[in-house]
């Protein structure tokens, strides 16, 4: 067993264990922290595959942005998960049955695993030699996959328009910052000098 094999087992074991803890942990904050652990280990697995760009993206996007956002929401909402889990035992038999069916199906699927003859040829051209991972991705992203890249861009744009349409409200009476007005203010507008007579006040 090489060192890479050892790391593979370490990463995947921690990944599976922490994924389990995501749904098993009582405290939602702990769940999110385990989710982050699962992401980091998945990034480690990518690294072992030689996909260093995907590993870094996973850390930056999922751990850095998504999971932290998740944590933020969980902390802000203060959802009482203990209440949500109350019916757990009641639904356990049905859930166990569904789980067992899916497990049997998965075993059948894995048992019948065969690769199509054309498969290895398609996969064989995956990593071009001599250039880094990032450059290789960039080369196909903007050429071969330009169509998908643009389509994904439109999906993000739609999501942005949608969230603005559904949440932005122009309330009346809200004080807004007007930067040019602020910058144009000088001491003549801001300060007035008054001669205050002694013992009289304004």
């Amino acid at each position, binding site marked *: 067993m090489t060192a890479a094999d050892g790391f593979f087992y370490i990463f995947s074991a921690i990944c599976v264990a922490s994924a389990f803890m995501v749904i098993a942990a009582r405290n939602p904050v702990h769940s999110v922290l385990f989710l982050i652990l699962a992401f980091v280990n998945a990034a480690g697995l990518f690294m072992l595959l030689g996909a260093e760009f995907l590993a870094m993206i996973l850390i930056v996007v999922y751990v850095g942005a998504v999971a932290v956002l998740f944590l933020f929401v969980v902390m802000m909402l203060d959802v009482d998960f203990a209440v949500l889990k109350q019916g757990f035992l009641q639904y356990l038999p049905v859930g166990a049955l569904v789980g067992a069916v899916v497990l049997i199906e998965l075993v059948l699927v894995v048992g019948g695993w*065969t690769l199509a003859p*054309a*498969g290895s040829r398609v996969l064989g051209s995956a990593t071009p030699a001599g250039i880094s991972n990032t450059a290789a991705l960039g080369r196909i992203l903007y050429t071969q996959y330009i169509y998908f890249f643009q389509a994904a861009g439109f999906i993000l744009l*739609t999501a942005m328009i949608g969230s603005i349409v*559904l949440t932005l409200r122009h309330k009346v009476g809200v004080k807004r910052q007007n930067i040019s007005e602020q910058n144009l203010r000088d001491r003549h507008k801001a300060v007035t000098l008054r001669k205050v007579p002694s013992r009289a006040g304004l």
Partner: protein
Amino acid sequence: MVIAGFSLAPVLPEFILAVGALLLLLFGAVAGERLTKVVYEIAIVILGVVLLTVIFDKRGESISFDGAFVDDPFSHFMKVLALIGSIATLIMSIPFLRQQGINKFEFPILVMLSTLGMMTLISAGNLIALYLGFELMSLALYVIAAFHRDDGRASEAGLKYFVLGALSSGLLLYGASLIYGFTGSVNFAVIGTALQGNAGIGVVFGLVFLSAGLAFKMSAVPFHMWTPDVYEGAPTPVTAFFATAPKMAAVAITVRVVITAFPGIVAQWQQIIIFISIASMLLGSFAAIGQTNFKRLMAYSAIGNMGFALVGLAAGTEAGVFGVLIYMLIYLVMTLGTFAAILAMKRKGLNVETISDLAGLSRHNGPMAFFLAMIMFSLAGIPPLAGFWSKFYVFQAAIQANLFALSVIGVLSSVVAAFYYLRIVKLMYFDEPVEAFDPMSPAVNVVLSLAGVFVLLFTIWPGPFKDAATVAAHSLF
């Protein structure tokens, strides 16, 4: 248009629509609320230009973007249907949205982006394009379902649709990943050659999940649960949009996937399609009987109609695909006509939605009652109206493919479904009249009349539609 060996010609309609939507978004943001109506009008014009570009595209078949985009007569036919659905609903929506105070400029832009997703989807040649098309189409749909954000029912509809839609996308992606894993390609054509009668259980497993995702978007049983609530809760023009354009795209991609990617394992997918088809027809027929809300009734009608359309697909033959294409064309027209009538159901400026509001309509508004009655007869499949032919072609294909049980169940459930369509006719003609409706807006009137005329005259002059559908069906085989 060629840029350094890179031709835009195959995607010209999509290109026009995408650039048009972006420019219109800028225009709408800068122009402000005064020019909202102009944004609607420009959106309709752009969609019209795209429609003409698709219709007058005579370049023949082509495959571009490394197999991701297939431009063939089949995609042209379905794109024309989807675009007609978008344009007609956009035209009808202007008065309604203004009256409800939700005529924001983003609405037509979201409809355009959704239509762009549909066109991507209809032309999808591999699983990645399929998924991206679905997401682009659905994301805009989730937003416009909840477009009336101060209305509790609309927000509920949007949220319900979003959560269930995300779930179905997950199922679809899981299926796609299994299919990719077991065949080694995301390209439909390559998958088709890799799978020749020797489907492993993994591929079938993936196929089931993929079908689940597709059935959700088509609102076919058993993934129909969202349909009645979303149809009822969303603003009526949005419901009209849901019932027409996205259905065209979803059915188109379902046909394309099973015909081009899985021709070698017909027996496997045929079971799934037959089950979905029978379940949808039965549920659509029986569950609609007790409905009193017209929009909810149309939701069950849509579920049933998807079942009938899939009868043609279950045959798996060229005649079957031809049947599906004709079915979708006639279903589109009938649905647009029905929703025009629903939009016209307005008293003292307020929209009413229960079918009992139609009582005695023939006494107040003869033409509207006549056209709606014709559309209802057609939906019930009564000859010589268009709806008869749509059912005729799919059942004919199914019988030719020896699917007798499916055909018999289909015909029987269409008899059950006839009950609730005919009840509406009875209400309009034989019941005591209630208060008259407000005068119809011209756009709604035009759509209803055109749909009624189409339904009446299809039998006399089906030539061009049948020719186009024949060419389109042939291009898949």
